[in-house]
């Protein structure tokens, strides 16, 4: 007898209601405000948590089913990639350095996001957001794990992948993404949702995963592409959660508007500063380029973010002020960041290089207003000097921004030849920031940012050397000792790509793969 396909007993909306609202209750042994002590202190007023609805109406049973399917597909690709020596199919070994930056700078954030959403899920009294945060927390740990698995294939063959977990707590440029998440996690659950759920996920992750991963595809790295897109399929849900959260806050009480606006302004700016690293990856670290950072910015931030802010205008939300500066910065920051990593290439766990003439022509075509005028002469000079054996390594530590922790490399919005200096004073001490955006954030909560763990200052305080090292000993070499503390092997993990072990190995192995030796 033929089995009839059983029709669903309850529809999606009904099932979602049962599997979320039906599972919540009012506590009686303890008052609700003691069970959920973090729900009110930020000043956000919520009157009816049941008004929150996940538009995907995803329930845990369906979540497990679809996530399992995603994992099966992903690991089949990763296995095939490893079995097929996929790493030798990438365009050029320079590309692999973008993956190092990804593993050290982004994967640890996925793990923090996992913890942060677990905390948010615990701290919200409403059942709808709690379920959504639980799923996002699981997604985030999945992203951290899958990225580590995918990149472990590269760790078998290339330098610099060996100790991301150690490095995130120490290496100078990694304090930028780390401090971003620390800032969000040390806020309350509602600010966390705006910081990560809304600004990072909704406004910014498209820029990270979509064009960059498409770029990985252009460069022959199907393993990473699949990890990226598999993660991004979860991001679609996260973005929806971030957007729902913001609408929910704004609809619940008019008093929430100024608080939400302040957080949007803050986190839109914090996010764009962190994305400087991604801009550099797209414009300089992909040997075959998919689109420029500026183009990606225009599609995913200006157009898509613009549509979003138009939509939120009905709640009284205004476009963050910083957007006028980002419209200027999009033509500069990738070049400024690459110049920074190039000169501090002695202190990082990946290799840097100067673009070829052909690549400079591409940059000049993509950045007609800025590349030739402000950057080409600098890069050409460095390349010529390197050819003469005088590769530039900057040996003096840079001044950092107190808020974003990026070296003070950004220029005045009105003058791309002038470094932007901003200064504040708090309790008799000076604090320096890189921009009006970061200064504004500092001035709003100075008690928070005076605690910043700024790598340069920490080195000068003597906190970045291995135990037993004596900084007063004769012949003490601070940079060498800091690298040891970072677990960066000098001459192997750092310095220029030209002449690196990665470069030699890739060339030799690819030769073996394509010739009969």
């Amino acid at each position, binding site marked *: 007898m033929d089995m009839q*396909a059983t029709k*669903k007993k309850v*529809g*999606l*909306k009904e099932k979602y209601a049962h599997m979320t609202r039906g599972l919540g209750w009012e506590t009686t042994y303890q008052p609700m405000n003691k069970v959920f002590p973090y729900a009110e202190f930020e000043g956000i007023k919520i009157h009816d948590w049941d008004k929150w609805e996940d*538009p*995907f*109406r*995803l329930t845990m049973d*369906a979540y497990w089913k*679809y996530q399992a*399917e*995603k994992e099966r*597909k992903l690991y089949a690709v990763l296995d095939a990639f490893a079995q097929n020596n996929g790493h030798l199919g990438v365009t050029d070994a320079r590309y692999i350095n973008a993956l190092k930056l990804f593993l050290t700078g982004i994967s640890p954030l996925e793990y923090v996001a996992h913890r942060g959403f677990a905390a948010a899920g615990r701290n919200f009294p409403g059942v709808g957001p709690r379920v959504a945060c639980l799923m996002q927390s699981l997604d985030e740990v999945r992203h951290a794990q899958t990225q580590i698995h995918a990149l472990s294939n590269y760790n078998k063959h290339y330098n610099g992948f060996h100790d991301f977990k150690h490095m995130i707590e120490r290496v100078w440029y990694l304090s930028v993404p780390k401090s971003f998440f620390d800032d969000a996690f040390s806020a309350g659950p509602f600010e966390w949702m705006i910081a990560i759920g809304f600004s990072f996920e909704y406004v910014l992750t*498209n820029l990270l*995963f*979509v064009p960059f*991963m*498409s770029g990985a*595809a*252009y460069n022959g790295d*199907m393993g990473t*592409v699949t990890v990226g*897109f598999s993660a*991004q*399929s979860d*991001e*679609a*849900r996260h*973005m*929806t959660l971030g*957007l729902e959260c913001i609408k929910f806050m704004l609809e619940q009480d008019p008093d929430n508007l100024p608080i939400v606006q302040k957080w949007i302004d803050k986190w839109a700016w914090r996010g764009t500063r962190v994305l400087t690293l991604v801009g550099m990856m797209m414009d300089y670290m992909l040997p075959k380029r*998919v689109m420029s950072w500026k183009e990606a910015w225009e599609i995913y931030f200006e*157009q*898509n973010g*613009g*549509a*979003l802010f*138009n*939509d939120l*205008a*009905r709640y009284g939300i205004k476009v963050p002020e910083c957007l006028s500066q980002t419209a200027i910065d999009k033509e500069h920051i990738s070049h400024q960041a690459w110049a920074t990593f190039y000169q501090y290439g002695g202190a990082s766990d990946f290799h840097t290089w100067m673009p070829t003439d052909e690549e400079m022509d591409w940059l000049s075509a993509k950045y007609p207003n800025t590349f030739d005028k402000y950057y080409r002469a600098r890069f050409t000079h460095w390349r010529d000097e390197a050819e003469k054996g005088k590769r530039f390594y900057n040996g003096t530590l840079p001044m950092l921004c107190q808020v974003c922790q990026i070296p003070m490399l950004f220029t005045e919005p009105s003058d791309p030849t002038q470094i932007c200096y901003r200064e504040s004073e708090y309790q008799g001490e000076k604090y320096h920031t890189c921009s009006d955006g970061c200064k504004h954030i500092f001035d709003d909560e100075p008690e928070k940012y005076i605690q910043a763990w700024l790598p340069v200052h920490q080195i000068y305080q003597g906190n970045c050397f291995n135990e037993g090292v004596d900084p007063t000993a004769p012949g003490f070499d601070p940079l060498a000792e800091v690298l040891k503390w970072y677990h960066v092997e000098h001459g192997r993990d750092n310095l220029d790509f030209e002449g690196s072990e990665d470069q030699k190995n890739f060339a030799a192995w690819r030769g073996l793969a394509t010739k009969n030796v």
Partner: protein
Amino acid sequence: MSTVFIAFQANEESRPIVEAVLADNPHAVLHESPAMVKIDAEGKLVIKRESIEERLGRDFDLQELQINLITISGHLDEDDDEFTLAWKN
């Protein structure tokens, strides 16, 4: 009017879905990138379960879209029959 979009991994499972979306939304525009297909549409985009089922020749649960989805933009509303993205302005 603002643009909504949805992107899928470019693979055999996505192909009938993309065909269905383009057939049901004549104003939608397809962009093919490496490993990714992105569909832009002014204002609103509706994905219909029945249209996908016709092309697949089997029952389809709209939540299966999750598997090959890369990203979306716009407010979402999903029920058993339709997955809708729209800007309300």
